[in-house]
């Protein structure tokens, strides 16, 4: 007989699932977060996994984690610290103990806590003596043995049986937070449609975990997190990489252009290429090239031929694409380059997040080579900024670099599905049919944009190329005055994009002394820190940048309103230095972390309060 546990209502919870990279923690976390989103909570997730596909089993290097933060209120970050840590082995405990709240719960698979695994994880004695677990509730669950027991008669081999143990853990946590199981079960049915035995096994273990939690009486209560009070509409869960891919597809549909992606796989950007490759139903063309350079060069060829062309990469790939970006600048062709930033330099931290490609995006090319640089700031608004990147690229006949990062790319959140009719039109600067005496570098006097004539159009045959072009005629030119004129035109052409971008907005107290400044993927953490600091009774404001070059036209005016400017970023201060260059009239303070991890709200809050005080 199971005891009816007490139900406690709470506002928000963060759960971290962790285990060996082969333990299926990413799937467990995804199923839990999707279930919570379907239930109506606001959700933010953070997958934290190693670069190695299968690092040695049982070692700290091989630990894969997935944090889910869900709540009744608005959730902007995956949470600094977790209320519940699920540790499938001692290494998972070792790697993640620092993230458990002092009054949190640790659920661990006691069967994996044997002497060998404890030693492999780097503990010398009992892990729960080595770590300070005072105040933490420890739930020792024989997950492996109960999974074996549960499936002993089902007709699977031992290895396949043990693969199901993550579902036992999911069952336990599902009971604890009163989550329905039907989403996970329908997932099994779809995923293992051809292997009914696996559907049965995973479903059984999931239920057994759920009933185990209900029965053991170890939990004095379970918790209810009511649906969040969010805007009406149809929702879905989305991560940053998928949102980028879909934003570009949406732009192509709106502009009535063929979407063409020339790219090369690179962590953490590959998901965009994978999603686009799957979208042949929408006639997206993808070309997996032999290297990063060929990736962008095929995109440039496609752009010349009239496609909406994009290339996707991360920092090392952006370095390789530099010369070709210059070619797109010189030929004044539309092109979107997506850089999903990761820890650098060199190969750096492939699976970790960072904001250190800003200077590379702005200046990492030979010659005076200006391009538009924009950055998305949440997983779901990657859709909006990918759309805007395409719109600007096409309308202004220029390369646009869209910066996201590993945190946005893999993080997911519920997203109210937008109506494409609400998005601005994309006007393609095609040459009007039957134009007489068309000249390839003749320009719109307002925007300085040239027009786009594509092969196959009669009477518009022309040559583009990497050599300097004579303005208006587009022929090769070595004339000194022309080069100076063209250098200014290329610069002005990008500056004029500022007319199309929205003004910078202030969140928080307009009359505060201190303005927090951020850009890109740190938005969720900054806005949460802002709320915390204001809750503590301080006045503070936040300006978060999505448009980097050009900056919004009112930037100087906004910055001038505050006494203290604190630029927070996950690098050594690149945006602060950029602002110093653009607006040297103001002094800037900096707060930087560079650990391959998102900010913690705690660190930010402390930094803001410290800067308020001195």
């Amino acid at each position, binding site marked *: 007989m199971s005891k009816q546990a007490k139900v406690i209502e709470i506002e928000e919870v963060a759960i971290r699932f962790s285990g060996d990279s082969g333990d299926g923690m990413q799937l467990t976390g995804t199923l839990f977060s*999707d279930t919570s*989103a379907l239930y*109506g909570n606001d959700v933010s997730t953070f997958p934290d996994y190693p670069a190695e596909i299968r690092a040695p089993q049982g070692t700290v290097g091989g630990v894969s984690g997935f944090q889910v933060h869900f709540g009744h209120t608005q959730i902007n970050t995956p949470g600094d610290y977790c209320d519940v840590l699920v540790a499938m082995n001692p290494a998972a405990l070792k790697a993640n103990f620092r993230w458990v709240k002092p009054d949190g719960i640790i659920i661990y698979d006691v069967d994996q806590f044997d002497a060998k695994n404890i030693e492999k994880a780097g503990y010398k004695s009992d892990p729960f003596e080595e770590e300070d677990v005072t105040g933490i509730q420890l739930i020792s669950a024989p997950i492996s043995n109960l999974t074996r027991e549960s499936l002993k008669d089902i007709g699977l081999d031992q290895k396949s049986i043990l693969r199901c143990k993550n579902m036992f853990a999911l069952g336990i946590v599902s009971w604890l937070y009163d989550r329905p199981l039907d*989403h996970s079960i329908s997932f099994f049915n779809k995923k293992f449609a051809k292997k009914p035995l696996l559907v049965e096994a995973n479903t059984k273990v999931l239920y057994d975990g759920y009933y185990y939690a209900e029965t053991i009486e170890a939990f004095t209560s379970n918790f209810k997190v009511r*649906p969040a009070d*969010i805007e*009406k*509409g*149809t*929702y*879905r*869960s989305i991560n940053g990489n998928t949102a980028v891919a*879909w934003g570009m597809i*949406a732009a192509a*549909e709106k502009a009535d252009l*063929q979407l*063409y992606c*020339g790219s090369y796989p690179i962590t953490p950007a590959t998901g965009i290429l994978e999603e686009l490759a799957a*979208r*042949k*139903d*929408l*006639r997206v*063309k993808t*070309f997996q*090239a*032999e*290297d990063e350079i*060929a990736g962008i*060069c*095929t995109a*440039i*060829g*496609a*752009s*010349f*031929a*009239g*496609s909406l*062309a994009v290339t996707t990469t991360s920092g090392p790939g952006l370095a390789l694409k530099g*010369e*070709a970006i*210059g*070619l797109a600048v010189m030929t004044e062709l539309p092109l979107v380059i997506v850089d999903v930033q990761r820890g650098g330099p060199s190969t750096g931290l492939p699976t970790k997040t960072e904001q250190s490609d800003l200077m590379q995006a702005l200046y990492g090319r030979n010659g005076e080579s200006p391009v538009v640089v924009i950055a998305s700031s949440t997983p779901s608004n990657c859709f909006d900024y990918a759309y805007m990147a395409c719109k600007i690229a096409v309308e202004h006949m220029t390369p646009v670099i869209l910066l996201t990062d590993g945190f946005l790319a893999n993080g997911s959140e519920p997203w*109210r*599905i*937008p109506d*494409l009719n609400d998005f601005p039109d994309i006007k393609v600067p095609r040459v009007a049919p039957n134009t007489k005496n068309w000249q390839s570098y003749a320009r719109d006097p307002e925007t300085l944009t040239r027009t786009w004539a*594509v*092969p*196959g159009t*009669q*009477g518009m*045959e*022309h*040559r*583009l*190329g*990497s050599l300097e072009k004579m303005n208006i005629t587009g*022929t090769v030119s070595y004339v000194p005055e022309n080069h100076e004129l063209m250098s200014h035109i290329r610069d002005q052409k990008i500056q004029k994009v500022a007319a199309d971008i929205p003004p910078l907005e202030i969140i928080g107290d307009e009359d505060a002394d201190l303005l927090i400044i951020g850009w890109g993927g740190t938005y969720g953490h900054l806005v949460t820190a802002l709320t915390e600091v204001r809750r503590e009774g301080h006045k503070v404001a936040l300006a978060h940048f999505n448009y980097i070059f050009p900056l919004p036209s009112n930037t100087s005016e906004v910055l001038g309103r505050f006494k203290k400017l604190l630029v927070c970023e996950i690098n050594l201060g690149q945006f602060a230095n950029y602002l110093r260059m653009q607006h040297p009239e103001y002094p800037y303070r900096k707060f930087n972390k560079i650990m391959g991890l998102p900010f913690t709200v705690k660190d930010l809050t402390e930094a803001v309060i410290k800067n308020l005080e001195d």
Partner: protein
Amino acid sequence: MDIEQLKPEDFKSDQMVRWCAGCGDHAILSSVLKALPQLGYKHEDVVFVSGIGCSSRFPYYVNTYGFHGIHGRAMAVASGVKTSNPNLCVFVITGDGDGLAIGGNHFIHLVRRDIDVNLILFNNRIYGLTKGQYSPTSKQGSVTKTSPFGTIEQPFKPGGITIGANGTFFARTIDSMPKVSTEILLEAAKHKGTSITEVLQNCVIYNDMTFGDITDRDNRDDRIIMLKHGEPMIYGKNQDKGLMMKDNQLHVVQLGENGISEKDLLVHDAKTEFAGIHLLLANMDFPNYPVALGVIRACESPKSYDVKMVDQIEAVHEKSKIHSVYDLLHSGSTWEVK
């Protein structure tokens, strides 16, 4: 304009041709201009893509669509043009440095994918535009500005690379034989898949007479063999030499000697998929062998990459329920908040 009525002059651009006087590129340009009206493509459907080097100025001199890229990347740019719009007739103009050194990777992958573009490789065995450094096709021992004591590296053989990368078409011509070049270029353009045409080209300034052994008018016919599909491999001023296969090797034989007659000679089969014989023929070099000109390999490609790409897209499009961004955004798990 009616395609039938186009003339070579209709493809000339108004730009002054800036190659050195006596450069082999002039002759190649003229051969290409002669071939263009015969391709059956409308003027506006032809695109020339090049990289960097003397030869890569080519697109500026042709009055079609053209794209002068960056060093080594013409193959990649052209791959993008052709896969973006398979209706276009795409030429790649590249040289031995652009196509085989800095662009070597793109060269082999273009060939491997078999995208339907026509690549013309201007091989002069030297870097001309940078004023005389050795290239990947320079003969071992070549004395150049960067090899003042002679190169110590093995040269590439473009035919060998093409065939090694599973190429379906390889041909060779010489700049000084413009009529032959035009004929070969027409064959190359007809080929459905990547065609590689190597043009042995003289650089009058930095590598003059590098192909002098085989281009010298007095001896030329004894040192080259013009391969034609289905015809026996006969050559020589007096049409008295031929090629035979013995012990897995090619042998030069004299007709009439040792009882050898025309029927003992190899008959050129450009269409066989068996690459071994094509590799031997493509790699023949003077003085041990005559240098092979003509279409050495022209296998039937069932379907080029660009066509397969469209076929796959149409097949998936047909089957899928997702036909718009609206369908996509509402696919999979969604939920209502009321």
